[in-house]
């Protein structure tokens, strides 16, 4: 089984999507995952040090 087949087995793309539903609010799990990844990436970008920043500050 190659990596593409493994990934396809992990995320079945040939079925109906999963949805979360609270009253009037409806969102697919796929869209919610992407929004979650964006929030995580945003937070990581704020706190992970940028490479070379310390070197530039030391050289001043």
């Amino acid at each position, binding site marked *: 089984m190659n990596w593409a087949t493994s990934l396809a087995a992990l995320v079945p793309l040939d079925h109906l999507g999963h949805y979360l539903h609270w009253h009037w609010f409806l969102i697919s799990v796929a869209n919610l995952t*992407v929004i979650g*990844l*964006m929030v995580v*990436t*945003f937070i*990581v*970008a*704020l706190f*992970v040090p*940028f490479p*070379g*920043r310390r070197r*530039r*500050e030391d050289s001043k």
Partner: protein
Amino acid sequence: MSTTEIDRQWTTRLRQRVTSKLPPEKLLPDTQPAYVSSWIYVFGVTTLAALMVVIATGCVLAIRGPQWWHGSNIGHFVNSLHLWSVEIFFFAMVIHLWGKFFMAAWRGGRSLTWVTGAVTFLVSILTAFTGYVSQTNFDSQWIATQAKDGINATGGGAYFNVLNLGQMLMWHIVLLPIGAVVLTALHVLMVRSKGVVPPFADASEMS
């Protein structure tokens, strides 16, 4: 022709205006301020890079046509590159927007930079939407038949008919990409002209 006459020419005046607003050292600077050394400043250029891949793959799809992108392996591959570069484009653009919102990046006379960015975002959503209804498959038919009710409810259906594939494709590959690229170019030139917005001053600096 006298010097005064040359100075009055529109070409001279335009050149002087452009070079005073955007001298070469501002257009392509050698260095950036220290505060730009942060991952949060990477997402603007990521969006730009993704846009270039979107345009390049879109050009290949336009040249080869639907039979090719539906019916051949390389067509599927380029079609997927087009889709996934759009995904990265929006992913990076939203994080760029969040970052700039919390920096209040419209400070210091940068309001038009913010506005062109926000309008580019809206134009990009419309471009992506017309792309979804131009796929020429069952997915695009489903999206178009669902979307028509929403568009008709706004009264816009008479001018923007999502069931008209020819109209949607022309919006997707001509009008909206021109709008998105021109707005992006203006946005980048404004960033170059005004510079990257500085962080908020420390409370200690303000007192």
